[in-house]
């Protein structure tokens, strides 16, 4: 029974979730493609010594930032798409006619979706620095001995930010799913979901909000007496410039309980909302 429900979720939504994975990994993939094919793209990295690595590698933590901000749009759109057949096409009633509680069906659907999102987040956030570092090692004079410690620290920071990114993404996924379940017309649901994500993101990143504002993502941290800058200049060959070696990243969000609890609370809230909506659904 559960096996068939999971199979249904997989078969019905495999391309939707695949899109999510693609979007999450698009930046690093594009980067890899550019560096692989365009000689000019490698310019900012110079001769790729260890020093260069230490300068540029921390930027790959931006993947986590993207996942928890811009990519929430993609996450929400996937959620709308995943929940559309149920609400718009009444496909849920096929499952409702089986001797299985609506709650069980919804739980399976939600858990499957949340796992997909969580895995996609984990993978993308870890893959970005790993792939970038691999490229750097392969093509330049960078060595493991010289820059391995920095890589380790970055990977650690990435791992720490996974929890926060996952919470935010799953919350956005469920919120958009709830909207999709409430709103029959798909385009209206999409618009509402986008609105929700924008508001959600704005609130999450605002200072003094429950989520601690933008402090979660100090990609460009400040250190006593020093300032760092990152600038991007398309389409010249010096398209990326970092002013100095960035300090080893420390203290990511996970150490703060309130934002994590708030994220978890939202997840519970949206799940409960969805359960209530599914319980009340009628074949009109």
């Amino acid at each position, binding site marked *: *029974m559960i096996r*068939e429900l999971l199979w249904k979720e997989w078969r019905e939504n495999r391309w939707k979730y695949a899109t999510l994975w693609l979007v999450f990994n698009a930046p690093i993939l594009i980067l890899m493609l550019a560096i692989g094919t365009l000689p000019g793209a490698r310019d900012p990295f110079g001769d790729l010594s260890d020093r260069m690595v230490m300068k540029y590698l921390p930027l790959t933590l931006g993947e986590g930032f993207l996942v928890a901000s811009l990519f929430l749009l993609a996450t929400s759109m996937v959620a709308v798409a995943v929940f559309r057949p149920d609400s718009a096409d009444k*496909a849920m009633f096929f499952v409702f*006619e089986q*001797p299985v509680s609506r709650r069980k069906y919804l739980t399976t659907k939600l858990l499957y979706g949340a796992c997909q999102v969580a895995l996609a987040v984990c993978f993308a956030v870890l893959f970005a620095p790993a792939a970038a570092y691999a490229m750097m090692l392969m093509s330049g004079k960078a060595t493991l001995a010289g820059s391995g410690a920095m890589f380790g620290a970055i990977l650690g920071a990435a791992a720490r930010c996974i929890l926060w990114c996952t919470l935010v993404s799953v919350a956005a996924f469920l919120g958009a799913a709830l909207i999709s379940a409430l709103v029959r017309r798909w385009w209206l649901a999409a618009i509402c979901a986008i609105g929700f994500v924008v508001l959600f993101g704005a609130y999450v990143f605002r200072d003094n909000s429950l989520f601690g504002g933008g402090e979660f993502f100090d990609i460009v941290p400040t250190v006593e007496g020093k300032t760092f800058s990152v600038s991007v200049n398309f389409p010249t060959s010096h398209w990326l410039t970092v002013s100095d070696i960035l300090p080893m990243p420390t203290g990511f969000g996970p150490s703060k309980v309130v934002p994590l609890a708030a994220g978890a609370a939202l997840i519970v809230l949206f799940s409960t909302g969805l359960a209530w909506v599914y319980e009340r659904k*009628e074949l009109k």
Partner: protein
Amino acid sequence: MNLIETRDLTRVFGKLRAVDSATLEVPAGTVLGLLGPNGAGKSTLLKLLAGHLRPTSGSISVLGAPAAGRAPELWRRIGYVAQERYLPGWMTAAECLRFTASFHQQWDSAKVERIMGRHDFPLQTHVRDLSRGHYVRLQIALALAHDPELILLDEPTSGLDPTGRHDLLELLIEEIGRRGCTVVLSSHMVEDIERMADTVAIMEGGRILTLGGVDAVKGTNSLEQTFLDYVNRRQE
């Protein structure tokens, strides 16, 4: 023993009284026909019986419980054939059957074979590409395979050619004859009801105009004439 009992069952959609104070009893092993024009409330009544809609007021008891919506286990004993198409279009017919079978310990594969196996049913075709006749056949298979006590059918013969209609009625007759199940069947085709039903409820505008044995309701007229009489009388 009554498998179904309703009393003053009412369902309202905004201003529309789709079902208005419906009171009926369906004893086990009998066939109730719902006869009426489009919009009479037959579909709504069947959905209420299935538990896909909640009543606005009145009471309803199906298989001894309020309605399937509250107790998913009841779906083991009920088969429902909807008028709408909501089988997942992307599934193949075979996948639909396998999916449904996984929820039931009781599954008569031989019966499924009989229902689907004739006329080379395209089991590997996606549901969205099935013709109306094939789609209904699949619905029937899904509804009957787990040997339900109660079968609810919403205008199952509509849109079928005479052969398809005949086949469908034959499937039902086989089922009733073999297992003595209870059936509630709606149609706007008088002949279907005349052939299949023991009891008939003539519906119009959400109300049950008359309810009784097919023979009693007919009197000395055809069922068709009786039906038209009732509808005309009501409109005066």
